[in-house]
Structures are given as C-alpha cells and as structure tokens.
C-alpha cells in the first residue's frame, strides 16, 4: 500500500542522487591556497554568459525549464 504518492518518479533522480551522496562522503577539506584549480573560470558552477540565448530558446522550444540558472517565467516565448 502506498502511503505517500510523490508527484514524480523518484527513480529518474535516483542515480544522480547516489552519485552525489558518494561524492559528499569522499569530501576532503581544501584550504584557500589549494583552490587554484577550483577557481579556474571554467570550473564555475553556473552557465556561461555566452549560453544566454541558448537557454532562452530552449525554454521556448521545450516544455521544461529551470534549475539551470535560466528564467522560469517572464518573457513571452510566443514564436
């Protein structure tokens, strides 16, 4: 008997979640002077500025949007 019915299939998100949990378990403390690789511009945990129009057209041409720094409302997308 299902006690709680979730609005989406958990399985879809399960594999990435397992990867994250394993990753978190292997965390090591990194000191400021050791962050030169993490501070590389290409290591930024966000979209590139140049992807702006790509994200825009994808949110218009696809039914899904969000969770990538892109907009989740506003602007038409009429065409």
């Amino acid at each position, binding site marked *: 008997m299902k006690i709680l019915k979730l609005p989406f299939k958990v399985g879809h998100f399960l594999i990435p979640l397992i*990867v994250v949990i394993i990753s978190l378990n292997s965390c090591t403390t990194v000191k400021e002077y050791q962050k030169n690789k993490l501070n590389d511009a290409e290591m930024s945990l966000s979209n590139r500025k140049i992807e702006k129009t790509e994200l825009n057209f994808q949110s218009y041409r696809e039914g899904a949007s969000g969770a990538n720094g892109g907009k989740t*409302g506003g602007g038409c997308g*009429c065409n």
Partner: protein
Amino acid sequence: MKKLFLSVILMYAGILSAFSQANPNSDSAYTKRKLTFEEANIVSSYYNQNGNNSAVTGGIGTEKLSDISNSIDLKFSLYDKRGRKHSFLGEIGVDHYTSASSDKIDPATISSASSADTRVYPSVGWTMENEQKATTLGAGLSYSHEFDYQSFGANVSFAKKTKNGMGEFSAKLQAFLDQVSLIYPVELRTTTGGGRGEEHNYPTTPRNSVSGGLGWSQIINKQFQISLEAEMVYQQGYLGLPFHRVYFKDQSVHVENLPSTRLKIPLGIRANYFISDKFILRTWYRYYHDDWGINSNALQVETVVKLTPFFSVTPFYRFYQQSAVKYFSPYMMHTAADAYYTSNYDLSKFNSNFFGAGFRIAPPNGVFKVQHLNSLEVRYGRYKKTTGMNSNIISLNFKFR
C-alpha cells in the same frame, strides 16, 4: 659615527614605516570605498530555426524563425565601512525576430502584427557579500517588453557558506507579473482590428509566476565540485497563447485552451571536474516534472580543452527528452469532448539533441592587444528535435575588465 649609523637606520625605518602605514590607510580606506568597475559583457547571438509544426497554424505549417539578440551587462562594486562588498549589476538586452508562422495570425494583411517584433529587457541587481559572516544577500528587478507581451520581475536571494568554506547553501525567491495581449487569429476575432496602429486596443490578461529555489554547492576535493538545485514554480493566469489555433476532428477551428494554473518542479545537478591542466569536464543534469503531464530529463556534457593557457576549445553535447502534456493532440485530432486542447509541438512528446563547440581566447595583454578586452568567446550549436524541427545558433561574447 655610531650616532650617524643609528640615525641612518632610524631614517630608513621611518621611511619604511611611513609607506607601510600610508599605503593601507590611504589606498584601502579610500579606494575600497570607491565604486570600482569590475566587468562588462557584450553578448550577441544569431538564431534561426525551421520545422513544419507551427502552433499558429494548428500544428502544421512552417516554423521558420530568425532572431538576433544583443545584450550588455555591467558590474560595479564597492566596500562599505563595515568591510562588506556591494556589487551592482545592470543589464539591457534587445532581441529582434522575424517569424513566418506569426505572419499567419492575420494572413489577409501584408505583414501581420507579430510577423516581426523587438523585445527590450532591462534589469538591475544588487548583492552584498559579508566575508565575516560568510553570507551573501541579493535582490533584483527586471522588465521585458514586446508588442504583445509585458513582464515585470523581482527576486531576492540569500547564501551562506559553511564554517570550513567547503559548502554553500542558497535560497532564492522570484516573481514575474506578466500581461498577455489577446491577439486572436483573424477568423476568430469578434471585433474588428488587428493592424499595428491599433495595438493599444488589444485587451490584456495577466499571467503570474512565483518560484522558490534552494541550492547547495559543495567542494569535494581540490579538483572536483558539485551543486544541487531544486525549484518549485507556480504559474497562474492565461497560460496558453491566444493566436495558437487548434483544429478539431469536425474541422472547426478554436483558440488553444490550457489550464489556468501550472506547477513545475525542476531538480538540477551540476558537477565540474578539473581532470588536468589541459582538460576540464563540465556536466549538468536536470529532472523536471509538472502537473500538465510533462516529465523530462536533460543532460549536458562539455569538455574544455586548453590548447594553450590562453586559448581553449569546448565541444559540447546536450540530450533532452520529454513526455507530452495531457492536453496535446496533433492537427485535427481533438474533439469537442476535450476540456483543454493544444497542438503546440513544443508541448508534445519528443527527444532533442544539441551539439556544437566554442572557443575562448584570453591573452594576458588583452584580446587584439586591447588591454581591457579580457576575453573573446565564440560558440556554435545545432539543435535537432525528433519532430523534425531544427535550428542553428551562433553566439559571441566580449568580456571587458
């Protein structure tokens, strides 16, 4: 002699101490509180698409469209008396598009109201970073205007790092208050009108969106970091578009009709790995669910190949898959029994592939030896849907520092 030697030593020490005191006091106290230019970006793109499932003509007909977009953003910062860093961001963007399908809203005219349009979207933002408390506060306002659509947006954000600086929690709230002009297909208009000169006569209806997002970013080790993002978006109002036709089985034509609320839940993970001085792997995955029936998965992988310390090439690939909304049916497949109906193929079941490459030049003495032109980036991508729609996009980014 001994006195002279001591005097010289004292004088030297005096000069040193004078400089060592004067510099931080004058520079840090003065320059840090002065508004400083940090960065500017000019981003230009050209996009074109083609396909044969336009929603304006009920799921058949050309989707040909081209769009030129240009935006410029500026970032300034200053430190206040308490040592907090305030950053001020300003941006303005202008898009201009031409659309063959929009020209079919009113085919009787030489060129209908939405066959070409310009969207202008300015925005401003502010963040305050407190290093002592390891927190960042932010707020922003945005506006977007086009012929048949107007949008006001506002957002607030908060972020806090963990004590060891390895993790960061973030939260964001956003709201968009939009107005849609009700421009119906010419044969479904109950009143006369429709020319450009009468644009002020179109009635408008609201579409509001509120979203809340939580994020967590974590440094795993010296070369690997990840972030998680969970959002919940609630939309209310007129969520269809008034010029999307739907042809029923009985050959009657209607305006797209969709529910007046929509709940969206996107969950995203980003993971970046610094493989070596030559290679960086960037990945992103999103699972998405909404109450209209769309379940989707998106995965993007890109590899930064640093050919020299100042020149890199980045091939990328993105796979996307979605199920259809409950209210979708193709041309002439809906019946009068359907309460909600659309023939918009952007809401149908499909997969898509997006692939391409970019390159970035960032020489130490500036691009083209222009000192403040920090980097130049070019990126091309080709997008293909299983419905037959395809598009190309090329973008250019000039970064000034």
